């Protein structure tokens, strides 16, 4: 198992290199080059910021040299200086990271729990009214644009019913935990919707497939209860493919957080990203994109490890 994990970690390195190459190419492709926006914007910006950025990128150097310098700095945790605030990008990200992690985490957990319950129940009770209902609901969930769903929830629960706050985060010190959690409810639901729908469908299909397997018949032939048959023999096998889908979807979850945070004025990285986009603050944009990609890669590693823990065949491969 240790060797397996080590191998997976080693495999991450070229993946991350590839990601940085693409992201660097994206910066370079910005109109007028990475610092172009800064110069053309005409707004007042501390000239030393521009200078520092130009110097670090070494814009007079060939592109590969610039890349090596950029990645060298990034490895030391230096993602450059924001155009709009002149503060180090790393610092800005770290400041906003907890809010985003909180939102993504709660959405992820919510989606995982609901998907597990819905998916299992619809598979066990295939073609029941519950199954039909959850199938229809999940089609709706997948087709629903995140931002529109957010707007509708704000309209219903915030404006019409007045039950929940529609924007901001509430302060932990001021209103306490419960108050803070109230702010979390709507954004988490909005962000998780698509994944509840997708994962529950996937688990349903996967579990139905597992329940048709020969070993399920063996388990029943042993006289095991239906609970043990589904719980012990079915779910364990059915969860294996679902875990990798959950990991793959993290990139989407990060993208969804950008929209959700914008709608609900959630003070996280996603909202900062949209603001940075309007300010054409490329260092900040790049820093956030890089963070998102690294999160995805790391999460996929975790998924691989979970996968190997669930499926003994992988370990010995």
């Amino acid at each position: 198992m240790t060797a397996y994990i080590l191998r997976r970690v080693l495999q991450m390195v070229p993946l991350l290199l590839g990601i940085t190459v693409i992201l660097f190419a994206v910066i370079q492709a910005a109109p007028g080059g990475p610092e172009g926006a800064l110069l053309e914007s005409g707004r007042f910006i501390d000239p030393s910021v521009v200078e520092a950025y130009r110097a670090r990128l070494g814009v007079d150097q060939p592109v590969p040299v610039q890349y090596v310098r950029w990645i060298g700095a990034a490895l030391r945790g230096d993602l450059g200086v924001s155009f709009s605030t002149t503060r180090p990008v790393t610092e800005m990200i770290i400041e906003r990271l907890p809010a985003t992690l909180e939102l993504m985490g709660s959405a992820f957990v919510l989606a995982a729990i609901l998907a597990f319950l819905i998916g299992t129940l619809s598979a066990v009770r295939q073609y029941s009214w519950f199954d039909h209902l959850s199938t229809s609901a999940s089609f709706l969930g997948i087709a629903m644009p995140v931002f529109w769903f957010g707007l509708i929830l704000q309209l219903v629960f915030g404006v019409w019913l007045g039950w929940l706050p529609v924007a901001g985060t509430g302060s932990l010190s001021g209103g306490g935990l419960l108050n803070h959690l109230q702010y979390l409810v709507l954004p988490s639901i909005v962000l998780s919707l698509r994944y509840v729908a997708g994962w529950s469908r996937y688990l349903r299909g996967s579990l139905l497939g597992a329940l048709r397997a020969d070993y399920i018949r063996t388990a029943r032939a042993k006289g095991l209860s239906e609970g043990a048959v589904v719980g012990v023999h079915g779910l364990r096998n059915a969860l294996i493919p679902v875990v990798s889908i959950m990991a793959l979807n993290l990139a989407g979850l990060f993208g969804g957080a950008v929209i959700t945070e914008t709608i609900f004025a959630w003070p996280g990285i996603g909202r900062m990203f949209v603001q940075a986009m309007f300010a054409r603050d490329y260092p900040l944009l790049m820093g956030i994109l890089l963070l998102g990609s690294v999160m995805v890669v790391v999460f996929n590693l975790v998924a691989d490890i979970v996968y190997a823990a669930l499926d003994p065949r992988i370990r010995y491969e």
Partner: protein
Amino acid sequence: MSGRTGRTEDAARASEPEVVAGADGAGGSRTVEPVLSVRNLTTRFHTRSGTVHAVNGISYELRAGETLALVGESGSGKSVSALSVMGLVPPPGTIEHGQVLLNGRDLLQASERERRDVRGREVAMVFQDPMTSLNPVLTVGRQLAEPLRRHLGMGAREARAASAALMKRVGIPNPADRLSDHPHQFSGGQRQRIMIAMALACRPSVLIADEPTTALDVTIQAQIVALVRELQDEMGMAILWITHDLALVAGFADRVAVMYGGTIVEEAGVGELYADPRHPYTRGLLASLPRLDDPRARLTSIEGRPPDLKAPPTSCPFASRCDWAVDRCEKEVPPLMDVPSVSGRSGPGQHRSACWRWDDLGGAVDAAFPGRAEAGEFA
């Protein structure tokens, strides 16, 4: 917990006399009550494209220590009939009617809970494909322990020791170490041994073996057959051995029932069935095997295809492929009729054939299987 253990001991004690009787009678004694008695079992699958008449009113009996071979080709209903006995017919299949009497109790009338108590304890099953019949993500120790813990109320440690003993009994080397291995770490033959160990864990009175050697090589098949026979001598269970291979069961079955199109078309003691088959299908199957005395001889094949089970049987299911068929075969479904037994032990149920013309069909296949022209003379 203790109550369950008590019940098991009672059951074990209750079945003891039968085991002894079966062993003494060497499968010949017909006075012993059958452990398993299937009567008029009918199973259908209601699919979108029509109803599949998989099993059409079959009846057979199985006595302690006896081996009944259920022989048939794919689609003959042999596997479905076994799953019906276990109560494991997958949807959309339903058991339309019939009785499955296990030690006198009708399993089809029992509640699902009662059936679960019976499965794996009084009647157990080994399946065809040992590669897919074990759960790939659970250790074999865990899977072996399940019936022990479920039915005998063993604790984890006790079940582990018992599992190791079972593994040893079926011939897995280093059993204690291998309990924590997963199925993919065993060979096909070993997996089938584990399946057998699992089925026999609670010493059931009936073992249903559904083509347990079909997926294995001949040398491994011989090992598995030898192992099962050994265990049968030891535990005295009755065996329902399902196979498509008429040759395989010649060596160890006591009785053979041949299935075709969802019905039993012939049933007889093993010696008699091969010496004096009284159904054209049985004769056709035997004739299609390569001859031992003359390997060059052209094989006799049964032309045509098995019947479409979506149409309810209104004629003899074999009529369209039968060289012997007469008008009556198209009009009336032949029931299983008693045939005088050449082995001397004649009597009801000794030899049964579902052919109107069983009387015209005597003798061993090699000598007496006629060609088409001769068949014409009879008609």
